[in-house]
């Protein structure tokens, strides 16, 4: 009688990465009161082990792709790709966190538990094949991120960041949910494949414009989550106020997962009404790029600058979405991976430089870094060049494939405007480079601490990743290309 209730072992295995992370995170909650302050680095080590285990599991699980739990989950190439990306983002976030949490005297198991839970949510998001499951994953990821953003609870800026992130995030969630409700009402299902069939079948008895309304509502919700214009207003304040490793995490992990569900929902369920939503994405992409890049020009705070740059990069990925093709999807996937590397790397340098209490966050504070700590400066240069999109870096191929996909889909104007935008963007990244190498060392650079092993890893790994993606993009792109076919 109860046999039908118990999931099969194959289903459980498809859920293995999430299980590993959840178990370890729960263990942290138990361990926290037991371990003293002396052994506080244990959490970081365990986090990295758990994340590595989860990543291995995610890859292993891909050997036997398929659906699980009554179609709630779908383990396929796309899901595996993004699972690896978000778990990788987790590892790259934990590495600089050692030093950061030490410095701010805030190392506890809860930080790591929340981080792991947030990654669980993102993994659920990217594997989910069902709107309600996506919604729950989204909320897990978001709620954990809200807390992480305000983790330094005596810091006024962190509070403010958490509050803004929370209010606007929940507001966006409500819109997303309304869209889900309307889709359910029109198609009688929340399973993406079923929704798609219902829309294709034309059995709805109503014009596609109604589906469009639902899609628009979900677009509002997802637009907030990926910080695409005109829903980007929260991003600068949140990135600036949140602890730097957390800001790095927010700019890569939740964003990648949000883009994953963006792609999955819009390119499966809403693919039949593609011509309807394409202008919407087109406008949003252009607005994000322009707004992000031009606002970044005038920023003096480095975290805020990176926040605006992250809005601009969201715009590039939206261009890939507007292309509505498998090439575009593959380009977006590649770009998110490359972006994760370069952006987290840049944030890790910021975290390293800023010092206790995040005192040195202005662009001028980078003055003379090249002289004081050439290694760090060189690594930061790699990240910045990649963010500009200089060849031999991951950022270059990411942009290249995106604009190529856009041209393939005849989005000529968007491509032209996007390229112009990239040129504008070069200015503010170069400003930092100039500051680093051509100015006398200022207070920040002269007070900079030596690199710790964790930080070294946190800088070198993403730099390696950026370079590998820039020099050998083929393997990742192949995989992305093969996985970008949703509808078989």
């Amino acid at each position: 009688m109860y046999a039908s209730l118990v999931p099969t072992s194959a289903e459980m295995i498809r859920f293995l990465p999430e299980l590993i992370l959840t178990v370890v995170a729960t263990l942290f909650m138990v361990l926290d009161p037991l371990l003293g302050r002396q052994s506080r680095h244990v959490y970081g080590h365990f986090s990295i082990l758990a994340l590595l285990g989860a990543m291995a599991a995610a890859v292993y699980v891909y050997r036997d792709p398929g659906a699980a739990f009554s179609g709630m989950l779908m383990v396929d190439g796309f899901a595996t790709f993004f699972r690896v990306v978000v778990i990788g983002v987790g590892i790259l976030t934990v590495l600089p966190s050692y030093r950061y949490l030490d410095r701010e005297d805030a190392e506890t198991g809860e930080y790591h538990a929340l981080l792991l839970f947030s990654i669980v949510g993102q993994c659920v998001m990217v594997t989910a094949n069902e709107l309600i499951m996506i919604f729950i994953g989204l909320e897990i990821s978001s709620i954990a991120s809200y807390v992480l953003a305000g983790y330094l609870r005596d810091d006024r800026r962190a509070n403010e960041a958490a509050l803004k992130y929370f209010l606007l995030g929940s507001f966006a969630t409500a819109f997303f949910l309304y869209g889900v409700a309307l889709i359910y009402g029109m198609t009688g299902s929340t399973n993406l494949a079923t929704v798609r069939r219902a829309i294709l079948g034309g059995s709805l008895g109503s014009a596609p414009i109604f589906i469009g309304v639902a899609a628009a509502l979900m677009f509002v919700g997802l637009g907030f989550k990926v910080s695409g214009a005109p829903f980007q207003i929260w991003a600068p304040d949140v990135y600036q106020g949140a602890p730097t490793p957390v800001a790095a995490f927010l700019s890569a992990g939740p964003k990648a997962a949000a883009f994953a569900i963006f792609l999955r929902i819009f390119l499966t369920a809403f693919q039949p009404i593609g011509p309807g939503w394409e202008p919407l994405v087109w406008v949003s992409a252009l607005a994000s790029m322009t707004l992000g890049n031009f606002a970044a020009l005038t920023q003096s705070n480095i975290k805020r600058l990176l926040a605006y740059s992250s809005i601009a990069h969201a715009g590039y990925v939206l261009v890939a979405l507007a292309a509505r093709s498998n090439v575009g999807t593959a380009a977006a996937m590649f770009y998110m991976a490359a972006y994760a590397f370069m952006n987290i790397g840049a944030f890790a340098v910021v975290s390293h430089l800023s010092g206790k209490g995040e005192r040195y966050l202005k662009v001028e504070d980078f003055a003379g870094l090249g002289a004081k700590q050439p290694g760090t400066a060189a690594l930061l240069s790699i990240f910045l060049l990649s963010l500009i999109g200089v060849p031999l870096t991951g950022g270059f191929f990411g942009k290249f494939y995106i604009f190529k996909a856009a041209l393939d889909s005849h989005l000529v104007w968007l491509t032209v405007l996007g390229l112009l935008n990239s040129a504008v963007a070069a200015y503010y990244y170069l400003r930092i480079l100039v500051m680093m190498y051509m100015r006398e060392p200022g207070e920040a650079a002269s007070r900079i601490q030596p690199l710790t092993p964790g930080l070294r890893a946190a800088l070198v790994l993403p730099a390696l990743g950026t370079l590998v993606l820039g020099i050998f993009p083929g393997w990742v792109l192949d995989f992305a290309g093969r996985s970008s076919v949703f509808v078989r």
Partner: protein
Amino acid sequence: MNAVPLSWYLTLSGVLFTLGAAGFLFRRNIITVFMSIELMLNAVNLSFISFSYAFRRVDGQIFTFFVMVVAAAEAAVGLAIILTVFKNRNTLNIDDLNSMKDEYQPAQPEEASETAPVSVP
């Protein structure tokens, strides 16, 4: 006249959702803003349950159940965030949360905490 068209329920849901959005946009008290979001979620729930009735299936109600759980979790975390904000600033007005404009110089946190957090016009 012993039955109500389903569209009435959906209209009600739309009205409540818009009212919630209006509260979110126009209100200044953080807690009221948060409550407006709860109102929006409730409106969505009504839609789910109406559709569930239309299909004569229970799954719409299940979605409502999940939304309730999510709302409860959000409330716990959200109110905790509001508490920390209040503890540090002694205000619940959204307009007072403006310490991160670019002009703000975070280089001297000691000074920053001395400047009066409230009553800045």
